């Protein structure tokens, strides 16, 4: 399992925490030597010269994996770079993110994919890339998926838009099936979304803003499920936001179709009523929807219809967001707050899940979709993420204190952008340390480089 990424040399002891992974949970210290877990056990002796990370009262989980990150490089470096986005990711407990291909130019060639992978190599979080399904994400012709697959790219999407042309999407699925890669769709039928800038409903009607109806998402989910049934190719559904979409995917899974799905934190933490003040920080696509949709997203996460929480971290420079609501770009930051938002909404006192179950949505489940787990064959040169914390495992770890109360301060974010929708909102649970291949890249909620 030769990896083309470096590992930290030296010894690290993560002491006093509760270790949680796909196999269960136990009180244990974790000793790391040269980037690899050496020993997991109660009250381990501190080796001479070892760095000690305090995990008292905290959970020690595999490092988080984000299936949906916009790093904006190349093309929009004023909003984010691979480096600044990776720092934000590390602070959020992530040890791997999948960079979305809607850069400028798009990641639709080996050259651009290599550029982003190279930029990620020294970053404080590993950066995998997703490739575009169509050339330039224009929805007209297939992108060179085989060439990208040779670089280890396993997810392909035109995210930002969905592939509108049904027959092109069908051919893309046929082509992808042969390559063993997975297509991921941003489900939005543009003819139905019709230029909407928020969810179409009571609030859009009152506020006088053009809305996009839930059926714009659901129509494409339904079409793509039919295409999966036809082609047999696997598919991943990005940021599902409506009760109807989730029900369609629930039925498809019951039928046995090879589909997975993700949801973004804002779709289970916020609803469309927050747009009432016309603050463009709440403009996002898919839009914030009704309280019934919020409940459906939570239910989908609880019953496994939705496999993973993915941030859809979408930085926009302040000067572009300081515009009238309908002119501001859609998207919100997510990396530095996602786990805390999920713990607050899902694992709080009245929450339906345990903290460990929430961590599953951020670690081993998304790692399997991105094929970054310890049993995945190639991983595109990345180390293993999301696997059990056992001797021999790559030391990609997240230490999170589920009892800490805190608030996001937009001014102190590591991201280059400030468009967080959570400013001033009390959150429960905070990432204390992040360990990347044995290196403590975040210590006491501060990024180390």
């Amino acid at each position, binding site marked *: 399992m030769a990896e083309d990424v470096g590992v930290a040399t030296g010894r690290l002891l993560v002491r006093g925490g509760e270790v949680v992974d796909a196999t269960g949970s136990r009180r244990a210290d974790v000793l790391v030597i040269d980037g690899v877990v050496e020993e997991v056990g109660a009250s381990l002796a501190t080796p001479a010269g070892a760095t000690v990370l305090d995990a008292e009262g905290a959970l020690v989980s595999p490092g988080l994996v984000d299936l949906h990150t916009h790093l904006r490089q190349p093309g929009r470096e004023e909003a984010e770079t691979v480096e600044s986005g990776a720092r934000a990711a590390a602070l959020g407990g992530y040890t791997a993110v999948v960079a979305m291909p809607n850069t400028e130019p798009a990641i639709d060639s080996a050259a651009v994919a290599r550029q982003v992978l190279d930029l990620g190599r020294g970053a404080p979080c590993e950066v995998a890339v997703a490739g575009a399904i169509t050339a330039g994400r224009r929805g007209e012709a297939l992108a060179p998926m085989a060439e990208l697959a040779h670089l280890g790219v396993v997810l392909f999407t035109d995210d930002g838009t969905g592939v509108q042309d049904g027959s092109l999407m069908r051919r893309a699925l046929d082509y992808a099936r042969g390559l063993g890669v997975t297509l991921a769709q941003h489900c939005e039928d543009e003819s139905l979304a019709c230029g909407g800038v928020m969810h179409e409903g009571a609030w859009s009607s009152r506020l006088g803003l053009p809305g996009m109806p839930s059926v714009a998402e659901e129509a494409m989910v339904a079409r793509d499920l039919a295409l999966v049934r036809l082609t047999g190719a696997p598919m991943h559904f990005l940021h599902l936001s409506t009760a109807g979409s989730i029900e369609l995917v629930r039925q498809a899974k019951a039928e046995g179709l090879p589909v997975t799905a993700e949801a973004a934190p804002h779709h289970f933490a916020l609803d469309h009523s927050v747009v009432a*003040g016309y603050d463009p920080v709440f403009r996002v696509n898919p839009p914030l929807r009704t309280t019934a949709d919020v409940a459906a997203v939570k239910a989908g996460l609880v019953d496994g219809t939705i496999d993973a929480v993915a941030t859809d971290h979408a930085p926009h420079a302040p000067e572009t967001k300081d515009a009238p*609501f309908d002119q501001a770009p859609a998207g919100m930051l997510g990396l530095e707050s996602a786990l805390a938002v999920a713990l607050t909404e899902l694992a709080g006192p009245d929450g339906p899940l345990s903290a460990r179950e929430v961590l599953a949505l951020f670690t081993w489940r998304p790692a399997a979709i991105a094929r970054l787990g310890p049993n995945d064959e190639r991983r595109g040169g990345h180390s293993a993420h999301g696997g059990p914390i056992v001797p021999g495992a790559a030391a990609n770890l997240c230490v999170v204190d589920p009892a800490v109360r805190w608030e996001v301060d937009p001014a102190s974010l590591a991201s280059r952008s400030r468009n967080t929708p959570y400013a001033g909102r009390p959150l429960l649970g905070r990432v204390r340390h992040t360990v990347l291949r044995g290196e403590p890249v975040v210590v006491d909620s501060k990024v180390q480089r």
Partner: protein
Amino acid sequence: MSGTALEAGSIPAPRASIGPHLLSIADLGHDGIAEILRVAEAFAEVERRAIPKVPTLRGRVVATLFFEESTRTRLSFETAAKRLSADVLSFSVSTSSVKKGESLRDTVETVEAMGIDTMIVRHSSAGAPAQVARWAKRSRVINAGDGWHEHPTQALLDCFTVRQVLAERQGRDPGELGTGCFEGLSVLIVGDIRHSRVARSAVLAYNALGARVTLVAPGSLLPPSLEGWPVEVATDLDAAIGRADVVSLLRLQAERGSGSFVPSLREYTAEWGLTNERARLLGPDTIVTHPGPMVRGVEIAADVAELANTVVTRQVTNGVAVRMAVLFLLLGTDPPAAPDEPRKVPAHG
């Protein structure tokens, strides 16, 4: 004697405060609307003088920031400000640095740095005045129409005009009627509700005053959701029109008749226009309002536009007094703000 200064005591002392901004009719509630109507009556009296000008806002600076074309609303606001002796700065997008790419926020901050007391904002984006109000450190902000959202002063002048007509018929002063004359009044709003800021403000205003509002429109021109709207919906204009005390027509923009919202302007006129035939179904006292500009032959027949109960011209006249009242109530009781001392203005929303 008519004078250049209003005699002491003839401007009513404000009884209710409004503001700090006027972004939506919802900011006013019943009492705020009643107060504006009351004060507007006093200014309507000023307007009837030989020299219709009072010194109330002398030394104050009012800027009209119109990012979208308008004739009557801008003229009406500027006339109102001048009759109150305010200095008026006029900013329009065609001659401004917005054309050079300046953002709304920078424009607002630049204008405010010149010592402006009030910004009157029209914008094609819903919510733009609310954002201007958030960015403004010391100015008051008045929404002069934002996208499909609201046009508060239009609704206020509609209510003012309706009350004036009702008072005349009873031979009384409009002020004596208070807002009781709206209680149970049947108001029919007809046309493109979906894309109408006038309709959104009118629904809120008439409802706050106790009127019963019915919307009449083809389904494709109704808002996608009417959840929480205090209205009834009717599809048959002929059936609804005879029971209405007020028929409020809305302009149908020509591009809406191109086939995607209604099949054609011709069909729209036949089903939802106030044609000569349909006007015969109107009650003898039914008041017909239109915010202008009218598209004669589409939503209103040319002859109907000239009927005695069609009060379009009177609406325009009253617009000045109503806007004087709004400016006075937002500004008249404050000391002028010093540019270096930001006034504490609570954030909206």
